[in-house]
């Protein structure tokens, strides 16, 4: 049902964890529908220097979280905002149709974290 890439990211997820003094944190999803994704960012010179995630969810949720962190690492914030849920799913060689829902969270969580960072910058 899942592609090899999905299984690889599920089995060996990249960038799992928290960043204690994160510059931006984004969380999407809710426990009712079975998935929560939380992304932590460390930003330097408008670039994503470090990124970590924590996810409650199915195989697809974990794999997309892992993939989005890999894709975003090192990108400028504007570049990172260009990442879409679809691109994440494609990078994983696709997801089963009934799982497109989860893939719709990873990029959203990243964007939420970037917004959180920018919001803090503004108010600072």
């Amino acid at each position: 049902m899942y592609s090899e890439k999905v299984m690889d990211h599920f089995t060996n997820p990249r960038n799992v964890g928290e960043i204690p003094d994160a510059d931006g944190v984004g969380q999407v999803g809710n426990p009712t529908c079975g998935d929560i994704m939380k992304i932590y960012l460390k930003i330097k010179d408008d670039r994503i220097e470090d990124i970590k995630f924590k996810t409650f969810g199915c195989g697809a949720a974990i794999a997309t979280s892992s993939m989005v962190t890999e894709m975003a690492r090192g990108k400028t914030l504007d570049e990172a905002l260009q990442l879409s849920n679809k691109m994440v799913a494609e990078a994983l060689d696709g997801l089963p149709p009934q799982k497109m829902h989860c893939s719709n969270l990873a990029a959203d969580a990243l964007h939420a974290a970037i917004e959180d960072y920018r919001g803090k910058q503004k108010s600072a």
Partner: protein
Amino acid sequence: MRRVYFDHSATTPVDPAVAEEMYRFMTETYGNPTSLHYFGRQARKAVEEAREKVAAAIGADPKEIIFTSGGTESDNMAIHGVATINRNRGNHIITSAVEHHAVLNTVKALGKQGFTVTILPVDKYGMVSVEDVAAAITDKTVLITIMHANNEMGTIQPIAEIGKLAREKGVLFHTDAVQSFGKIPVNVDALNVDLLSISGHKFYAPKGIGVLYVRKGARWRQTLFHGGAQERLRRAGTENTPGIVALGKAAELAAANREEEAARLSVLRDRLIEGIDSRIGDVLLTGHPEKRLPNLVSVCFKYIEGESMLLSLDMQGIAASSGSACTSGSLEPSHVLLAMGIPHEMAHGSIRLSLGKDNTEADVDYFLEVMPPIVERLRAMSPLDQE
């Protein structure tokens, strides 16, 4: 890779002795039991012998046994048949919140066709209360349908008591015994039921064959299939002789081995439960602590989600399920666990381990060795606040 199959509530392997019978009836005794000739008569004889075996296994008369294509068809046929034929007497149906979708969706469909439906709640163990049933019956009630044992968490309902009540009130009573048959005693008189559903592939018979028991004289009629006069006008379509013969043999074996096998499995089940509890922690065993199937463990692991556990177990060769196999692919967690008052996020973290005849203590121990690091890894990834 070591493979452990812990998903017998989803489906079972066919017993090799049963599969061999099936093979013989496909290649040698292949006649249509409706046919007059030698090939047909051989098939007819085998079908009627199978009917007798099934009848004996549930304490029924062979004439009360109808062969169907499976549990879903039996449930639909039972409920639709009673509702349609008794429409002039009343339009109220009582069921429970923890039924299989084959019952629940059939009743709900009737709800859209002018029937009033009462869906009874359950307690935290998933139990229906007999008092609730009594309070729900009105003079418009034509059918009560409550399952014998639940497929997701294994709770056994007080069917005999509900049946007694239904009989006193003159209301027809159907039970879905798909999960209970072969595991706990299923006797139509002891249970006071008028209709009862069974599915072959849950007790080492093949998929695609089931049984509907209908008590003699019950106000029920076949209303789903129109066609030939098979099964004494109660199920049109060429009889699935190989499936029927296989189900008959499997029913006989199930009845003969039930007690011993249930005792053996409940030891394994309890070893699983205790092992999970002591080695993992932050878990919730779901279903009734005593009134439960001997072969089923249902447990919620806090802070993590079911599918990721299943995938991880699968990579270690262990086959389990989360809730009902039928509902995978849906975003909603199990309606059964929610009905028991289990919060959404915990319900998402449920898995079901259902044991069967080839499972051993070594299988249980393998699971207990493999599972703790899986849970640990997933919990380390979880963003939920952990106590």
